[in-house]
């Protein structure tokens, strides 16, 4: 089969908000969905300053750990109101918020089970390519301990940066692009 070279990434730039923000962007499920909650956080740079021109996108399984996608070998499920995708630009204080439900556990490799997790893309002016991280849940201590990704992080990577904190209306998850509290980012 012929091989084509992939197209390089470029920065999302400072003006993505005119194109990439949707009215329903933050909602992986409609507001008011049973068991729906907010994940709120902020994006910070290496000086600890908020990043006001970042966009955060999340992708996740549904509450049963399934996907509406043909490449899920267990079969695609129908999603009626669940979108799996949420997208939010940061505000002047670097803050974002997405509304979703907790994903179920998802099979991993080698017969492992992945703890409930949400894949995250972060893009911003000053970032020439996307960064990828994951959100895990603080109440899933046993599942997190057995998670193939969390349990195989190198010593330099703090799994604490990947675990959200419980709040009144959901969870808090901050992203530190650089520095002392730098979030663990993945080579996808």
């Amino acid at each position: 089969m012929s091989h084509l070279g992939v197209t390089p990434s470029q920065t999302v730039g400072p003006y993505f908000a005119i194109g990439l923000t949707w009215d329903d962007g933050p909602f992986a499920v409609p507001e008011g969905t049973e068991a729906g909650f907010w994940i709120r956080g902020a994006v910070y740079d290496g000086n600890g300053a908020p990043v006001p021109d970042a966009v955060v996108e999340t992708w996740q399984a549904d509450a049963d750990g399934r996907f509406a996608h043909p490449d899920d070998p267990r079969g695609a499920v129908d999603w009626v109101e669940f979108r799996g995708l949420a997208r939010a630009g940061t505000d002047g204080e670097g803050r974002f918020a997405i509304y979703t439900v907790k994903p179920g556990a998802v099979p991993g490799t080698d017969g492992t089970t992945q703890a409930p997790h949400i894949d995250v893309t972060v893009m911003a002016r000053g970032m020439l390519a996307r960064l990828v991280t994951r959100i895990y849940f603080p109440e899933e201590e046993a599942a997190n301990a057995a998670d193939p990704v969390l349990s195989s992080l190198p010593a330099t990577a703090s799994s604490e940066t990947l675990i959200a904190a419980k709040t009144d209306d959901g969870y808090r998850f901050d992203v530190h692009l650089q520095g002392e509290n730098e979030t663990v980012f993945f080579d996808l």
Partner: protein
Amino acid sequence: MTEYQTQSGIVVPAYTRENKEVDPPLDYPGYRSTEFRHPQNPLVLLPHMLTEVTGPLLGESRLGPLDYDLTKQHEEEPIGQRMSISGRVLDSDGRPVPNTLVEIWQANASGRYRHVVDDWPGPLDPNFTGVGRCFTDSEGSYRFVTIKPGAYPWKNHHNAWRPAHIHFSLFGRAFTQRLVTQMYFPGDPLFSEDPIFNSVPDPKLRERMVSSFDWDTTEDHWLLGFKWDIVLRGPDAVVFEEPHA
């Protein structure tokens, strides 16, 4: 599609990681804003598992009928050189990526974005928003009608000007395929001094971001045609684990 066999019986496609040799570095001093916005720890290898090989398959209900035509979104036509940009979205094995959302945004003909933060003295155009969306068809083809964006100044260094470009955002079929990039125009004299364009390490790779002028899609007394194909990460070589003894 290439598949990855795990001992739990879950078979998922694995995607090429060739983007690592193609994408610009996150730490690129020529683009000053990267200084405090790049991680200093090494990225941690994430195997491609179910969450990574799936992705949002959005419905066309998201689209309005004129979303693909940026010249028809207002009462009157925007000022500028009318043009089309069309091409195919493919994966690195040459397979079309059908029914995937393509989003674009751009400056107007004077190089000004309709964004509160863009305040340089290029005039705004009341008839141009600069935002378009379409889905690829079953062959992976897409098409937009717009006006050619102008170059614009920025504050990276003295007399810094961005070459004319259109921002493109694609989901593909999987989280691994997500791509945000910029499409440039052939022969732009501003390329040589633009750190964002030149952040892609190899000049031959930069050419992948440059559209070509195309007579076949140029329409007599109406518009100039430009072509640009976009290639997303495709399947990797086959990897099979040893089965359980």
